[in-house]
């Protein structure tokens, strides 16, 4: 199990604990990661609003870099996933357009032939590694913990671009992983809605209302914490949570964990290696419950 690993920006910026926990989990389950150091940002759906072709060219370059490694491409961000899937579809549907872009990549010695199949860590974990294997490695079943899944828009829609046709269960992978870790998924209406991140600088009140609503609802449904495969969602749900609480006028105090942190806890990996201390909303209550749980 070896992957061309596209880290995205956030795991190297405001969410270092994502990189840290993912690295620890990958090592633990025997997943080898070849870091794509020279890959650029996907454009996050923002560059395309100024220049679609530019965004497509940046992604074609990243795909070509992945092809060069001969390894399957893995990302760790819902937004990266959505942008990559969308661009890939466009490039594959229009060979002349791809050829034009390839001409621009030639100077760097790159060319994209259309074989990349970008997949998020969440998909790779279920589809390649398998939940049976995960279950067999669980050292500390997270029984008694209630976990609210939060997917992020870009990994949920549009389903036809994201391969839900071939993998219809992609819409419930988070719940499946939560269960495999021994915890109980919490159902609430906001789990596939928007966290509000894309408009945080344009309409702060709307953005924080979105974040606050989802956190509040999950909390009310009895969640001990929330888990997300998207570091951008994480930024809005965790770092902005105190402000979101003010906007929705509800006391909020719900730890927001990255998917790799949830898995790491179940695998019995040390807290310090999961970066659980690098959160705005303290994860201490979760850790206390966790350490009270018996090791299997």
């Amino acid at each position, binding site marked *: 199990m070896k992957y061309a690993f596209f880290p995205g920006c956030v795991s190297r910026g*405001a969410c270092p604990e994502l990189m840290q926990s993912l690295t620890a989990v990958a090592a633990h389950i025997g997943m080898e990661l070849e870091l794509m150091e020279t890959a650029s940002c996907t454009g996050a759906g923002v560059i395309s*609003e100024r220049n679609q072709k*530019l965004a497509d060219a940046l992604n074609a370059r990243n795909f070509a870099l992945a092809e060069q490694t001969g390894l399957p491409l893995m990302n760790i961000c819902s937004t990266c996933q959505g942008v990559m899937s969308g661009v890939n579809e466009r490039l594959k549907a229009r060979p002349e357009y791809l050829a034009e872009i390839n001409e*621009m990549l030639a100077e760097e010695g790159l060319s994209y032939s259309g074989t990349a199949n970008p997949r998020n860590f969440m998909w790779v974990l279920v589809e390649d590694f398998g939940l049976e294997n995960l279950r067999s490695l669980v050292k500390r079943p997270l029984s008694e913990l209630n976990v609210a899944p939060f997917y992020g*828009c870009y990994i949920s*829609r549009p389903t036809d671009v994201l391969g839900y046709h071939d993998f219809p269960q992609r819409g419930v992978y988070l719940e499946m992983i939560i269960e495999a870790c021994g915890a109980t998924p919490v159902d609430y209406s906001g789990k596939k809605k928007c966290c509000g991140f894309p408009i945080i600088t*344009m*309409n702060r009140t*709307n953005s924080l209302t*979105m974040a606050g609503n989802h956190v509040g609802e999950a909390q009310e449904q009895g969640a001990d914490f929330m888990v997300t495969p998207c570091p951008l969602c994480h930024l809005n749900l965790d770092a902005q949570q105190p402000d979101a609480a003010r906007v929705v006028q509800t006391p909020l105090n719900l730890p927001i964990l990255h998917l790799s942190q949830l898995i790491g806890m179940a695998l019995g990996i040390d807290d310090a290696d999961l970066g659980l201390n690098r959160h705005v909303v303290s994860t201490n209550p979760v850790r206390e419950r966790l350490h009270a749980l018996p090791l299997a």
Partner: protein
Amino acid sequence: MQFKLNVRRYDPEAESPAPYWREYEVDVPANATVLDCLIHIREYVDGTLAVRCSCRSAICGSCMMRVNGQARLACATKATDMQESSEAITVEPGGNMPVIKDLIVDMDVFWNKIRQVKPWLEPVQPVPEREYLVPNETILDLTVAMNCIMCGACVSDCTSLEVDKNFIGPAALAKAYRFVDDPRDEARQERLEELSDYGGVYDCTHCFFCVEVCPKGVAPLERIVEIRERAQSAGVTNNAGTRHAVAFEGIIRDSGILDEPMLLLKSIGMNPVEQLKNVPGGVRLLRAGKLPLASGPFHHKIPGHGNVQRLFEKVEAAQEA
């Protein structure tokens, strides 16, 4: 074939008008649509159920409702496709619009927003003696937006509308695009300015719900992104949305990857009050050890970022040529 439907009921004239759920079992042909099931209920099981429909062929847009949690045309949705397990198919009225009775919503919200974008041509002067000539490709492009049947599915599931009723919303913005890009329209600049204002294209949060639920491939989000692009190229740039996009593009050009603090500062521009609002957030990030301070608060560039810069230049040069 047997289907179980769990239907959200609401009657404002009832003694206790609180909404409630009622489960029905129907025996209908295996190829029945959800609308067929509901009509069957109304005709043979419970005549009090209120449903709106007309064409039954996905043309009129009147049967929009939420089936299994998502806005759909009931007449274009097969019951078998919705029967995911032994559980009942859930049927509710569309969201973001007030419910009149049971599955019928008040579409005034929808139409008011359509009216707000002035959905008519302001003819370019002077009016030609005969017809305006419009290139074929232009009309083909507009056809995508013109395919809208005004069903309200996108409005029902829009997450921005859910938190802010002032947002113009997906259907009306897709309609606006249809006029913005029509060469016969004279009000383009004015439209772009209005659409870039509060409640306009920059309040859309990219959630893709409208793309997912639209039964006619209008993909309102894509039209919204096109309006943003048109507005920015037409010089309508004095807004937070453009500042955000310009800052983002600049950072990627320069270093290959994004750094959030820099993006925040650049997007917010020189407005000190807005800057201050973000300070608590920034301080919290620092305190939680989330910003990689060892390397300074900002990201390093990616190795070989010059390649990314050159790619920017090439794409732009090709476009100018």
